[in-house]
């Protein structure tokens, strides 16, 4: 039995898609913050912590919700065998810059702990794990572009050598101009798209 892609989803400021099908449009004439909130409302999510998060973590929470909703995993209380492998290009750079504004001016020096805590890209993993009670293997990679072959090798080994039964893997990128999430739910099985480099690239490019 090989690895398959059970489900995948993508979120941009324009639209949200699940398994390649658009589930709704988003008004792209608004700020990134507002379009994330619109996505939250459209997904009928009730999770007040969402509003405390920076844009990158908001995006990660929305994408994980799209991916896991209506799956058998969603109902399992303790997800000890679910791994998370996320990546992006900008790390937490938007929040890093916002945090820096609180320390730039010596006359107005008030370093903000609530911003500082979001100046790490793996906070996205923490937020997803808290929301869905996920305790499996986790790692955050930074690469200039989504790197399907690096992802493929790593995820394959996770299934091969750890307790991993499912893996949430993909790309959660947020910069000053735009954002983009693309997540896969990888599992063991034979009914579904094969988890390989070509398929990952295809799904990403046609999302």
């Amino acid at each position: 039995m090989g690895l398959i892609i059970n489900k995948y989803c993508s979120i941009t400021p324009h639209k949200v898609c699940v398994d390649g099908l658009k589930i709704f449009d988003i008004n792209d004439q608004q700020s990134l913050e507002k379009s994330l909130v619109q996505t939250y409302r459209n997904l009928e999510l009730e999770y007040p912590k969402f509003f405390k998060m920076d844009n990158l973590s908001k995006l990660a929470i929305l994408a994980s919700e799209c991916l896991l909703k209506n799956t058998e995993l969603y109902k399992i209380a303790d997800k000890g065998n679910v791994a998370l492998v996320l990546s992006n290009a900008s790390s937490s750079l938007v929040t890093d810059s916002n945090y820096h504004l609180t320390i730039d001016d010596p006359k107005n020096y008030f370093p903000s702990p609530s911003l500082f805590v979001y100046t790490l890209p793996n906070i996205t993993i923490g937020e997803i794990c808290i929301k869905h009670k996920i305790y499996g293997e986790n790692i955050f990679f930074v690469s200039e572009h989504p790197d399907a072959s690096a992802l493929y090798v790593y995820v394959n080994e996770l299934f091969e050598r750890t307790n991993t039964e499912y893996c949430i893997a993909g790309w959660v990128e947020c910069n000053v101009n735009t954002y983009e999430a693309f997540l896969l739910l990888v599992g063991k099985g034979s009914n579904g798209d094969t988890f390989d480099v070509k398929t990952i690239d295809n799904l990403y490019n046609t999302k």
Partner: protein
Amino acid sequence: MKVVYNITDNIISSLGFTTDENMASISQGRSGIELHTDEFCIPEYFQASLVAHEKLDDYFRRFADVSRYTFFERMIILSVYEAASRTNVDLSSPETLFIISTTKGNVYLLDPEHTHEFDIERVNLWSSANEIASFFKNQNTPVVVSQACISGVSAILAAKMYLESGEYKHVVVTGGDMLSKFIVSGFQSFKALSPHRCKPFDALRDGLSLGEGAATIILGIDNEDYLPSDSISIKAGATSNDANHISGPSRTGEGLYRAIMNTMKGDDASGLAFINAHGTATVYNDEMEAIALSRAGLEHVPVTSLKGYIGHTLGAAGLIETIISSHSLLNGQLINCLGFTSLGVSKNIQVITEPRRFEADECLKMVSGFGGCNAVVLLKKYS
């Protein structure tokens, strides 16, 4: 059976620019943590372990152009260069992969004081990683792991995966972090820094001491029967999230407990000579680690923290402390927990107070970090 093993390593810290210099300083009980009152234009003073910048540049100048690389990159390049000088591993080979561990890389370039120094693109971790890999003429896209304070151990575990996949013969796991206004002010805003030199697991501990540094481990893979004598292998490891809080350690040590159990996979602890804990000396971290060790049935295993020597070196911590643990396994000598006097956690863990000999051939290295992440690696000595 094929095993992943350490071919050579290097540590750059306040205590020296080679692994041997660092080991020698530690065996003499030296700490690199000092009081800094006028550093980085930060109004409050702080304790930290800083790398000697001018001395590092003197070394760097012997083989490369100082002006082309940021200090973060210079530390890492020197570290890889020094490690590689003692092996014949071809760093430029397509079968060699670079994995770079860091939390904040060149974030200091966001400071208006420094923005003009380099192309601002260099603030991206992938861009900085490309510069490092290119210096060694490596053509593979470097893998960057950025996972708060567990980055170093996560990078080692990722290297093990990439080697076991058969895609690469060697992995250069390197990484580091430099201190800056950004990092120091952030930890101050959390009230996480101690006004004193940090005291891991102690009753009077009141926060961490920051540190900067870089480290490199060049890993290979071979049949266990063919390993060079006195090799350290990366036997096993695991990561797990607390799924509890993004900035506070779990009160039950959940993620760390699971990472330990998934690493030990039912092995008993009789082979463990010691545990090298994260031991940051914050009230909650050290208590969380004690709880996780107790739940895992490891209260009786000698435990130490290296933070009193070199501070918390962030993205370098997992690498530096794994290397020091490896050399401790090789020389058979426990390292005492500098700064510790009397037990200040709720479980009866055995904190090491004097350097004594041991016979066992395995140890655990644990790390935990913001985002609720935890990682554990099991090292084994092959004689």
